[in-house]
């Protein structure tokens, strides 16, 4: 084994040398900022670091006792749950449909994946236009059909709905790509056996297909969670700015706001740490629980 791995390189240092650029980039752009974030979370910082005072755990105390912040955590949980659930559910549903050999299947698949190619900023602007209460097309049709013109962004529930819809719409394509790939790699013999045994389509899906897809579901769960936590900033910034009255203020947006608009870098760093720890815990939990349920056979 030893000799084999080294066989490609004459010198023992060459592989390390080749890896060096990667390490440097990781160190400079990943590990150092992470370390700095942890450090800054113990300081009260003014003007992006021009002045700072050590305050121990004060920032964390503030985050975990101030009702405003507790509300942000709750918003983040609700928002992330909805985004992850619907991204995956809709993604799976559409990929099962797109997996069928119907006329024009190539076209359907392309169309389903398309939104993923848009940048979140563009997607956010599209939804802003769609749901504009006065000039938006959604309200135009609702008005014509039902005589309704809801103020989408001024009602907390509706504003949350628009935000979730935008994030899901943008990310469904990603889920479709992976689910489609997984569906096409399913072992045909198992499904055939189920068919011969007289299982209904409903049973075939839930008893055979879905369990076989579980590794992919597991992977997508992690990816979608990361997406919901970190990549949804543009939607909030463009659509609601956290409003109405903080009803759609989620952690990633508030970190930006505290850090770069309100110059509370220490507090923002502490929130980043909380978010970081949250994602790590969630991922670990998933690996622990997931290991038992996930079926890697096939």
């Amino acid at each position, binding site marked *: 084994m030893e000799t084999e791995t080294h066989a490609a390189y004459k010198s023992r240092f060459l592989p390390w040398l080749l890896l060096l650029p990667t390490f440097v980039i990781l160190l400079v752009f990943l590990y150092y900022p992470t370390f700095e974030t942890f450090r800054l979370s113990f300081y009260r910082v003014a*003007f992006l670091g021009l*002045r700072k005072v050590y305050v121990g755990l004060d920032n964390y105390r503030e985050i975990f006792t101030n009702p405003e912040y507790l509300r942000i955590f709750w918003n983040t949980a609700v928002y992330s749950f909805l985004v992850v659930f619907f991204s995956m559910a809709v993604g799976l549903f559409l990929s099962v449909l797109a997996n069928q050999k119907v006329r024009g299947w190539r076209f359907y698949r392309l169309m389903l994946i398309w939104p993923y190619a848009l940048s979140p900023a563009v997607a956010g602007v599209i939804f802003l236009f769609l749901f504009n209460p*006065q000039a938006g097309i959604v309200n135009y049709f609702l008005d014509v059909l039902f005589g309704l013109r809801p103020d989408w962004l001024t009602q907390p529930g509706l504003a949350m709905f628009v935000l979730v819809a935008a994030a899901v719409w943008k990310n469904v394509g990603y889920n479709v790509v992976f689910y489609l790939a997984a569906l096409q790699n399913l072992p045909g013999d198992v499904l055939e056996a189920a068919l011969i045994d007289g299982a209904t389509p409903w049973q075939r899906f839930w008893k055979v297909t879905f369990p076989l897809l579980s590794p992919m579901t597991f992977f997508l769960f992690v990816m979608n969670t990361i997406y919901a936590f970190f990549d949804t900033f543009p939607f909030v910034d463009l659509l609601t700015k956290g409003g109405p*009255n903080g009803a759609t203020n989620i952690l990633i947006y508030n970190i930006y706001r505290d850090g*770069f608009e309100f110059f*509370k870098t220490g507090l923002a760093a502490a929130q980043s740490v909380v978010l970081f720890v949250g994602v790590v815990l969630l991922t670990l939990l998933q690996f622990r629980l997931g290991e038992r349920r996930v079926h890697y056979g096939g």
Partner: protein
Amino acid sequence: MKRILVGLALMALAVPAFAAKKVQITFWHAFGGGRTAFIQRMVEDFNYTHPGIEVKAEYKGSYRDTLNAAILAARQGAAPHIVQIFEVGSQLALDSGIFVPIEDYVPADLKFQLEDYIKPVANYYRIKGKFNSIPWNSSNPILYYNKDIFRKAGLDPENPPKTFGEVMKACEKIEATKAAPKCITWPLHSWFVEQWIAEQGALLANNENGRAARATDVYIDSEAMRRIVEWWKEMYDKGYYVYSGKPEDWDGANQIFVSQQAAMLITSTSDVTFMQNAAFENGFELGTGFLPIPDGVERNGTVVGGASLWLTKGHPDEEMKAALTFLLWFTNTENMVRWHKGTGYFPVLNTSVKVLEWQHWFERNPAYKAAFDQLLQSKANRATQGALIGPFPEIRTIIENMIQAVFQGKPIDQALKEADAQADKALREYNAAVGK
């Protein structure tokens, strides 16, 4: 051979030109779109007429982005020479300690230009008797209205509402006659609240709006604020007031007005040029009027909004000098005239106003007149001087959240009290962080 010799001779001549290096000045601003090009043209004119100086103007995103970028660059010792900072960032800029008080650096023979600022502008930017920055783009809010809709509703198109009560009455008529789907819009922005506070002669912070000494208490739970919020809430509940749903959405409000979904719009005077073009394109007649104010109070005036230009410290003398040369050129009489005509921002120098008057500009362009008269009629006192509060950006968000909470049904008393406490806390933390 001859050609080569000539070539060499030419090159020899060219060398001294290279040796006399131009002084490089960087200027960061927050104007995108058409205004970037406008600024670029002015900078090119400057570079052409000042062969020893090369100014480079860069668009850095929003006001907040620009300020952040400047602070970060200063930390790394690579600050741009000139930075545009929004008016409510003034206290922040002072506290950051990366800028010089500009008045100390203006050469004696150019000091006269500092005496030329129109009073309301000098009033805002002269902090403790001294200009810390050069006032540049200045604006305040006015009422824009659609004269065609006014006619349809049977309202006098030459006499827009001047008070909250008159706005309410006009709205009743517009709704009754179905002249427009909605009556009035303006961005849900704390800026308008601040203006209405000043119009009533009230203060937003203690220590004379933070002008006599550092502010330590924000006045949100006040009589003046209550008048504003009560009227706004009633307008919203009756469906007269409409906004896009997003706070601080200037474009959203403009869109509602320009598409004739609402008869009136309150927004910055800096949009006069834009609005005139938009009205023309959409085929309606535009009118402008003073900002409507609460009934029963004397019109006290508005606070100058906009931004000013700050000079960062730590550059060699010749660069400081060159930067100042540019700054004073950029905001001189003729360039202020040009800037005003191109954007609608105020001509902030008395001499520029004279030039415009001599050209009969305001008579030929009445839309610009309301804006300017309103500014000139503002009384000079602590209220119209505007508040200096360090964490102003955060306090704006607190005020905007409060308005939205009231819309959703939170009792006004409670909303004001809670917002007041939050703002005081923000101020306390800020003051502690800057060590004051």
